[in-house]
């Protein structure tokens, strides 16, 4: 029992735990739309394209969130614009923007001196979050959950029948931009936990697991959040006791749960 409570005697672990749960909530709930709307690739793209913004903010001493938000929103608008035009295949267009901006981030990073900061950016450093970070993460979680609740009807309809939404006067593009904005928020907070490279694992894996377990939307969101909570908790303990990368442990835990659940499902349907 002591082994379970011991880490939380430490203030930094309390902050890390609070931040991780809030991040799990944000990514878990939003990830369901990312999975159902087949936006996984966009999620991955956004998590990489915020790099130049993060690096610029870091080197200039601006707010990291601000830097990431600006480049994330630029990406989201760019992707939304490209896919709306329908001129180039969406995945190709995203691929170009995505690798281009990530490359810019890499070049900018290589000019900075600190390896530790680069490492935090790429792989997350939830053990280092400050109370201000936690407040910011809580704010983002609140915004994401509030918008999802408020626009539930619109998000749901535009996800499975955007044409009907359009005809009914509910502009599917507006909903799409809102979702991309929420995605940027989730990415920015998620990066603090697992970093740029592993972010889409946190966004997609719990939601993918939940989608194996139910075909009710709300229940899927609930299960996805629970899965994300379990994953971040396992990740925190693992990094505390085995001194391994927190982000890596979190995403690995989520992936392990996915493998187990899909194995059980496959076994059930084989019977």
């Amino acid at each position, binding site marked *: 029992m002591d082994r379970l409570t011991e880490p939380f005697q430490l203030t930094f672990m309390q902050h890390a735990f609070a931040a991780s749960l809030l991040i799990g909530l944000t990514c878990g709930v939003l990830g369901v739309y990312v999975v*159902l709307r087949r936006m996984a690739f966009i999620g991955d793209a956004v998590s990489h394209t915020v790099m130049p913004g993060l690096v610029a903010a870091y080197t200039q001493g601006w707010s990291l969130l601000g830097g990431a938000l600006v480049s994330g929103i630029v990406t989201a608008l760019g992707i939304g614009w490209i896919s709306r*035009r*329908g*001129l180039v295949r969406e995945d190709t267009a995203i691929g170009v923007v995505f690798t281009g901006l990530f490359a810019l981030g890499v070049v900018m990073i290589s000019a900075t001196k600190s390896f530790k900061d680069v490492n935090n950016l790429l792989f997350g450093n939830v053990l280092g979050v400050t109370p201000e970070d936690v407040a910011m993460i809580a704010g983002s979680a609140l915004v994401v959950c509030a918008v999802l609740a*408020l*626009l*539930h*009807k*619109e998000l*749901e*309809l535009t*996800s*499975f*029948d955007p*044409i*009907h*939404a*359009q*005809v*009914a*006067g*509910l502009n599917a593009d507006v909903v799409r931009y809102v979702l991309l904005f929420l995605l940027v928020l989730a990415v920015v907070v998620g990066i603090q936990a697992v970093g740029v490279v592993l972010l889409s694992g946190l966004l997609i894996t719990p939601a993918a697991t939940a*989608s194996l377990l*139910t*075909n*009710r*939307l709300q229940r*899927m969101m609930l299960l996805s959040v629970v899965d994300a909570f379990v994953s971040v908790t396992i990740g925190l303990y693992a990094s505390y006791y085995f001194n391994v990368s927190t982000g890596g442990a979190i995403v690995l835990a989520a992936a392990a749960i996915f493998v187990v659940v899909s194995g059980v499902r496959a076994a059930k349907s084989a019977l």
Partner: protein
Amino acid sequence: MIAGQHPLVPIAGSQDISAIHLRGVTAQYPASSAPALSDANLTVPVGSLVALVGANGAGKSTLLKAIVGLVPLQAGEILVHGQPFSSQRRRVAYLPQIGELDWHFPVSLHRLVVTGRYVHLGWLRRPGRRDAEMASAALARLGLDDLMGRQIGQLSGGQRQRALLARAMVQQADVLLLDEPFTAVDAESRSVLIEVLRELRRQEVTVLVATHDLESLSVDPTAVVHLRDGRIDGLGGPPYDADPGPVLEPWIA
């Protein structure tokens, strides 16, 4: 029944106003280099049932989509009850081709039908109890009340078409645009669909139905419009070419 409660809103002089009116309509998809519909002229009187026929790719779906603003117009204009579609949304129910929805999405049949009320709700307002009751009633009318809680992907083709018609009914529109409603339909579903279509006709609902084969319609249309390569190339046509004139006048400049 739901559609029966619908008042054909009496507007002064409404008798003269056709339900749907296309004048010189040319429509083109953004990603395409040639128009999918060229110089289409058509007048559909209130209460008529008009069949759009033609081979695959003839432009039937495009014509329906143009009416509800899903394809941008290069030229011409479209009026619904004498007004632009954007002011008539509530009165026009559009049934897409069955493949245009994501049927794997986690949503129940009942919830799908409730979305027919959204045009009345607008942004942010949630469907209420009355909306839910209307959906239940429409599902009962189409013989789907046992399946209300089922995820939509677990419905057969015929059940999906019935679900889409139920959704159109809860909208209480008086113009109905149907795109291939008999595709992938079993005998039972077909007879339910046809029965409801007949009922809607008796209620003076204007119906425009795209179908690649007229025989499957089984409801005598007021008129038949032939499309070929994006052009209206004939009205009437066997076995209806006897006298399409009085009920369906093409608009002529």
